[in-house]
């Protein structure tokens, strides 16, 4: 016969185990749900370090061109964080209204990973892809703008791979290929033509 206080302890323990399991499932669902939420706020790089000049290749839909622009941003010395902040500076220009190349509210760069100093893996957030306008031209300008901006500020980058929410995705919004690895020279050749 198990003493009563032990039984109560077991019962409480079981309640605790299943409550914790239920809470974990709830937390997981909430994390998934919040990753899709759009806050609509322009993102800005952290202001913890002094501002540096950054070269941006900004898309202009009306003219169908990519133009070189300068901006100042606080950049990290760590390559991955630096790349992310450079791209966030570009994204912020597109999120401003009016925008020369509007993108969806809440668009952001989740992470940039630098592999072997030459391959940049850019992870866009879900809102970026979900809110992006569909069209060959619109999507091409976005991709070219991201790749050209990254390579202009980090010349050691020779290839760029784009993910969405940490996963491979076939296209950005139905047209632009995200399965391939972008060759920076090819993109820059097009950018020169589009100036």
């Amino acid at each position: 016969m198990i003493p009563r206080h032990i039984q109560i302890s077991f019962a409480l323990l079981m309640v605790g185990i299943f409550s914790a399991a239920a809470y974990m499932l709830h937390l997981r669902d909430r994390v998934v749900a919040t990753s899709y939420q759009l806050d609509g706020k322009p993102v800005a790089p952290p202001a913890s370090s002094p501002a540096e000049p950054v070269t941006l290749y900004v898309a202009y839909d009306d003219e169908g061109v990519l133009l070189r622009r300068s901006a100042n941003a606080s950049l990290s010395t760590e390559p991955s964080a630096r790349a992310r902040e450079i791209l966030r500076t570009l994204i912020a220009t597109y999120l401003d209204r009016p925008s020369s190349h509007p993108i969806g509210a809440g668009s952001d760069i989740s992470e940039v990973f630098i592999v072997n100093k030459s391959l940049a893996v850019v992870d866009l957030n879900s809102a970026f892809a979900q809110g992006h306008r569909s069209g060959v031209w619109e999507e091409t300008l976005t991709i070219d703008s991201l790749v050209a901006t990254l390579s202009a500020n980090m010349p050691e980058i020779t290839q760029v791979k784009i993910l969405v929410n940490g996963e491979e995705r076939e296209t950005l919004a139905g047209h632009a290929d995200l399965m391939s690895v972008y060759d920076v020279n090819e993109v820059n050749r097009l950018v020169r033509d589009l100036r």
Partner: protein
Amino acid sequence: MRFSEPIRLFAPAHLLVAAIGLAALGFMANHSVSASSEPEHVTIYAPQERFQLVTVKEQDREYVDLVAALAQFGTVASNKDDNRFKLRYASISAQFEDGSRAAKFGRLSVTLPDAFRLSKNSGEVTVRSLVDLLPHFLNEKVDYHEVSRSIFIGNAGTRFTAELQKSPAALVLTFSNPVSPQISVGGGRMRLVFDRDGVTTPAASWRFNDPLITSATFEEKPSGPELTVTASQPVLATFGAGGRTISIAAAPKAAITQPAAPIAPVPALTSPAAPSLNGAATSAPPQTPAVAPGATPAGPSANAENPLATRPRVAVLIDAAHGGDEPGAALSSDLAEKDVTLALARRLRNELQNRGVSCALIRDSDATLTLEQRAIVANTTRPGLYLAIHAGALGSGVRIYSAMLPAAKLTRTAFQPWETAQAGYVGSSRAYAGAMVDAMSKSSVRFSVALMPAPVRPLNNIAAPALAVEVAPRNGDVASLGNAAYQQTVASALATAIAGAGARPRAEQALAGGQP
């Protein structure tokens, strides 16, 4: 208190806690595994629809939820009373008892192969019992194909006949419904697996007195009904009649024996084999009759001055982008890109045929096709030019895109990387695009024409000259994209440019070399 005392006192409790904890973890792990693994199921083919029922396997018996099964056909009311289960479907009442093989339909008693059992909110019967019960509820004959785990109600299912035609030899399969089998080749055999089509023809084998196709066998397998065709040389499957016929014939020798010959000016009859389909089989994308080499005849009138007209195979393969569940860009509130691209593709086909250029559409209906399926069709068709048609709201005129890949020399290998299959053709694609732009700029119809590389999927996956055309509005008016006159003007200009580009010696020279 001595140190050892509490340990002795709580040792059983610790063991119990550990056991419960492990049980809880086991339960959670089992739950997560079972949630992520694919459940077993049987497929039911009814005259109007096809659906799957999840089964629960216990002691070599597979149970299905009886109410869930009948609910697929109509409204079901059920009532559980102690160990009895009453069920009413349409005007038919039935009664079951937990653990009993006896079932009652009014005054009629039926003995089931296996016992009925009550579940929490319903009643369950084995698959064998369900097959016996369904005729009483549906008043239709029911056949169960155990190997393929398929239940056929009434006349549901697809039947086919096989006939060998001579001159040229071709095995023609005629189906009662459209089919989309998985096709593979190897070891002198072509295998067609009808895993979604409910093909019910009894197992059969055919022997043919033919030097090309010697035999064929049809049998049911767990992966689905399978037809195996044995041939003495590589064969090619061509779909027709909206997926109701499959014609299996010898693959063109040029495509087999000269895998890396120089690219012909436009039709590319001797272009290398597809990167992932080393052989000569074509796979039919679902819901659409796939275009296969030779499926589309040359245009209505052969034009002696146009080199495209003399080619017997598909010179231009037109891919109307998007379709079905994938509408593409919302050009306006009532104009989807998929509709504009299909209309443009059809007009372009007509215009090309009027100029004596053989061409075919990958999509000729509102079918859903993945980008990979489009690339597979293109690579098995091996056209002279793959042309994806898009429509966009930005800018005006026509934009022609080639793949954004570094040009590479065409290698004489059987396989090419899928993501860079276009690399060896980038030069020829761009030369062709340049010739098209030249032709369009000299056209009497003034268009704004732009040419540039762009990362348009699936251009990188196409092992043939490949371009994408994006048609933009006339004078910035998005509604013009849906205008028949504007579409016709664009299609006519594109057709003239394609035919003209194919006839240009400079383009031919560039194309034949594979590089500009």
